[in-house]
Every structure is written in C-alpha cells, then in structure tokens.
C-alpha cells in the first residue's frame, strides 16, 4: 500500500519534470521558432523574389542567382573578406598563443600584464573604429609616427588601395587579448607531469613547446580557428565606419555589400540570396577546417580511452 503510493508519487514527479522541462526550455524553443527557423524559411522564399518592401514580393525564380553570378562585386567582396580572414585569423592565433605562453610563466606583475593586454579586446565598435581611423592618418597619425622611429616612411594606409586592407588586419590585432585569455585558461589545464617527463627526456624549451604545449593546446587552437573564421567572414563595422569600403572597393567586405543591397538599395530578395551564399561559404570553410582537424587536433580522451 505504502510502496504503491510511493511509486505513484514518483511517477507523478517524473511527469511533472517532463512538463517542466518543456516549460523551462520554452524561452529557447520559441526563440528558435521565431528568430531562427521561421526567418530561415522566409529567407529561402525571399531569395526567389524581387522585393523592395514597398510593392509586394514578385516571384522571379532563379533571377537573383543569375544576377549574383554576373555581379563582379560579389566575387570581389568574397575575395576581400577571405583575404582579411586568411591574414587576421592565423596572426591573431599565433600572437595570442605566444602571449599566453609568456604570461603563463611565473613572473611578477602578471595580473597587470594580463589586464593590459586584455583591455583593448573589450573595446570594440564605433569608438574604437574612430580611434583607429585617426591612428592610420597618413600625416598626423600615430602609426606612421611609430614607423618613423624605426626609419620607415609609412604609406597612406586607408587612402591607399594596397594598404587599406592590411591596415584593418593590423587593427584586428588590437583584440589579440581576447584569444590570449582563452589560451591562458587552456595552458593552465596542461598537467605539469608532461613537462617534467619531457625534461627527463632532455627536451629544451622549443621541444617542450612543440611536443607538449602545441599538441595539448590543439583543441583550443581549433576552437579559436573555427570561431575566428566564422567571425572574420562577417566583419562589417570596420569597413563601414573606417573606410566605407574604399578606396576603390579595396575594403568592400561581403557584409558591407550585403548591407548596401538590403538597406540602401532595398533589394531584399537579392540580399537574401547573398546571405545564403555567405552561409554556404562559411559552411564550406568550416567543414574544411573540421576535416583538416583530424590531422592535427589531438584529443586526450581519444588515445587514452581508445576510440
């Protein structure tokens, strides 16, 4: 009698938990439906229409896609964006990692260094963009002043077709502290026995770095690589605020081109196709990174616990 009541209570509690699970998950479930799934389907439909938001959407089938293939700025902006990603992501990873390794040693003032390096990475957006526009000013800017200390005459940076994109890559390095903090967290998780064992085997600093630190950090580097690629392919504010895509479209990022089509020329259908192209481009690059990861990312569990 008593035990039956107990099982009844248990199953009631379990049922309650099932219901509550759905209720508590509702903020995400609804959000997923309203802000992800719905818009994705709508975007797919808009992609086949001509829609300026004033007159109703008009079905044009493959028209947008045909136009997109003919638009020279699409390929150009993809190229600019890819170049930016290819330059800034590896640079940020290398510098961030080196910095984290330096800051992982036992020296005085560690907290101050960490704070100093991390600070700029939280300052993004328009204010930082304006600051960098001023820094890259060819005649009065800080950057060319620093170069002149080393006897280098700097270029006109943002006004020069060849140097505008490199300037934005340099600016991206200002945020290196964001990655550094993540590497630091990873470095602190590497067991010290590994270093001790390597030392017994006579490994020097370089050998320890390449045979212990880098392999153990490879999952973190991989995570940062994927996130970096995804993030840098969506770069917008720098191109919009600092250079307005110029000079001569040298910094016309894909997102800037998309923004102009959608919110300046009101070509919502065309912009939708552009968004999907970007999505597949990001997907392909990410899959490529994932595929390559089997060769260089080392997961501890895989070797120790068998596959």
């Amino acid at each position: 009698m008593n035990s039956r009541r107990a099982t009844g209570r248990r199953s009631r509690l379990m049922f309650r938990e099932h219901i509550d699970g759905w209720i508590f998950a509702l903020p995400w479930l609804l959000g997923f439906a309203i802000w992800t799934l719905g818009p994705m389907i709508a975007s797919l439909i808009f992609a086949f229409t001509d829609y300026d938001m004033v007159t109703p959407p008009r079905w044009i089938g493959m028209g947008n896609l045909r136009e997109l293939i003919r638009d020279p700025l699409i390929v150009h902006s993809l190229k600019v964006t890819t170049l930016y990603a290819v330059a800034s992501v590896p640079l940020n990873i290398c510098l961030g990692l080196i910095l984290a390794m330096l800051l992982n040693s036992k020296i005085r003032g560690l907290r101050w260094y960490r704070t100093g390096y991390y600070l700029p990475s939280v300052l993004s957006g328009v204010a930082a963009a304006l600051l960098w526009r001023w820094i890259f000013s060819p005649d009065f800017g800080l950057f060319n002043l620093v170069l002149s200390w080393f006897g280098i005459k700097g270029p006109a940076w943002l006004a020069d077709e060849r140097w505008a994109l490199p300037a934005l890559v340099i600016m991206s390095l200002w945020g290196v502290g964001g990655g550094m903090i993540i590497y630091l967290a990873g470095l602190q998780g590497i067991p010290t026995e590994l270093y001790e064992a390597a030392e017994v085997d006579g490994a020097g600093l370089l050998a320890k770095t390449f045979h212990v630190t880098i392999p153990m950090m490879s999952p973190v580097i991989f995570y940062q690589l994927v996130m970096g690629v995804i993030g840098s392919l969506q770069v917008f504010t720098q191109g919009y605020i600092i250079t307005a895509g110029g000079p001569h479209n040298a910094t016309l990022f894909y997102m800037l081109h998309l923004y102009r089509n959608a919110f300046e020329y009101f070509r919502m259908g065309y912009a939708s196709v552009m968004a999907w192209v970007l999505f597949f481009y990001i997907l392909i690059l990410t899959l490529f990174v994932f595929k390559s990861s089997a060769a260089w990312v080392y997961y501890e569990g895989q070797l120790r616990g068998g596959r």
Partner: protein
Amino acid sequence: MSISNPTQSARTQKRLRNPLHSKRMRGIMGAIIVHLVLLTGLVFILMPLAWSISTSLKEPGAVFTYPPEWIPRPVVWRNYIDAWTVLPFFRYLWNTTMITTFSIVGRLLACSLAAFAFSRLRWPGRDVLFFMMLSTMMLPSQVTLIPTFILFRKLGWVNTFLPLIIPKFFAEPFFTFLMRQFFMTIPIQMDEAARIDGCTNFSIFSKIIMPLSKPVFIAVAIFVFNANWNDFFAPLIYLHDSDKFTLALGLRAFQGQFGTEWNLMMAASNLVLLPVVLLFFFAQKYFMQGVVITGLKG
C-alpha cells in the same frame, strides 16, 4: 661513476665559474627577457588609448602638429564638456542604457530558464533539442537578418527600441550553453533532496540554482552589457530618428558633422569607452570566469 668524461667536467667547471651559466642566473635572465618583451608589447598595445586621451585634451590647432606632442599644452578639459553638449549626448546615453538594461534582464531570465531545463531536468527530447541548439550557434545571423527586419517593419516596430529589446527575452544559444555548463557543476543531490521536501522545480531553480550561480549570472550580464553597448549594426538598421540614436550611432553621426575636429571626436569616443573600461577593471574576475567556464571544461 667516478670516471667522468673529462671534457664534460671541464665544461661544468667553466659553467660554475661564469655566473651567467648558473641555473639561477639563467632563470633571472629569462625573467628579464620575458619582462622586456611583455613590456614592449604592452606599450604598443596601450599606445592607441594614451594617444586618444592625449588628442582629446588638445586645442584644435595642436592636433595636427608634427611630430605630435604627447603632453597637450595647454590641457583643454573643456573638450569633454563640448563633446558632451554639442550633441544630445545625454539622450544617446539614456537610450543606450535603456536598451542595454532590458537586454541584460531579458538574456539572464531567458537563458537561465532554458539552461535549467537542459541541465537539471530530465525530459524526453532534451538531448536532441540541446544538440539542435548547439548547431544553431554556427548559423550566421545574416541568414535570418532580412526576414527579421521585414517582420519588425510589418509590426510597425522599426524606429522604436522594441526590435533591440524583445528578441533578448528569448534564450540565446551561447549564453544558455555557458549557464548550463555552470549549473552542471552544482551537485544534483541538492535538487533531489529539495524534491523530497516537496519543492517544485521552479523553487529549486530560484532558491537553489540561482543563488549558487551568481558568478555565471554576472559573467553573462557583463558579456551582454558589452555586446549591446558596443553594438552598431542593429541600431543602424532599426533606429532612424536622431533622438532615438544610441551612443554608437551618435558617434557615427558625429564623425560626419565634425570630421576634422579630432580632439572633440576623441573626447566623445573616450566618453563612450569609459563605462566599458571601468566595468572591465571592476569585474575582471568575472570576465575571466566566463572564459574559464566556456574553456570547454566538458
């Protein structure tokens, strides 16, 4: 054992004589080199900020002297007052604060509820949905951008704060994941004990999980604050009247009107950065904590 290699012992002796070769000395030299490298890097990375402070305190004419002076003469504190008054800065500050505050409240509420469902409750479909949520983290926001904009336009919400606030009351995958990771570290036995005492799931959430999870709530609040304070794209497409502008939009407009007055512009942008810097210094611990939680602990 006693017969040691003669060349080696000679080398050891030489090493002992030369103080530079003793292990202790090498350690000190190493530390000095590390300090030098780090300090040089730090100077370069903080130079832009020092430069913007210096520029913001200069007279208009002194901005363009070359080579530039680091210490402005005279120091023009007025620039900060001018930058503040030449634009409806207070209006922008108020707008940004409103949007940011509601965003923080919305995100904390929605994400913590969803994270509770994904970490402390057992229900059919949980793992499938959790996997689905994680996979949407990879989806770039551009794909949903245009239909979302059209939806808000249809609702008549463009040029109001609603498009910047309402979506924040739905759970966002990254923060939900972050909070779930933290909730998982709290022993599940606490929930079971509470259930035996007749607690509902909601009171377990509010009386046990929430109080124990202060660090992750603070970490998420800081991330949301930063993202919204610095956000440019969403305000750019949704807010059109200048009295509805946020600080980011105001600064951009400022650039158009006062493109050559770099001293005022730097003063204005420093004013926008100030709260972020202050928050960073006071809440460093929680910034780091957020990273450690996401640090893929498992």
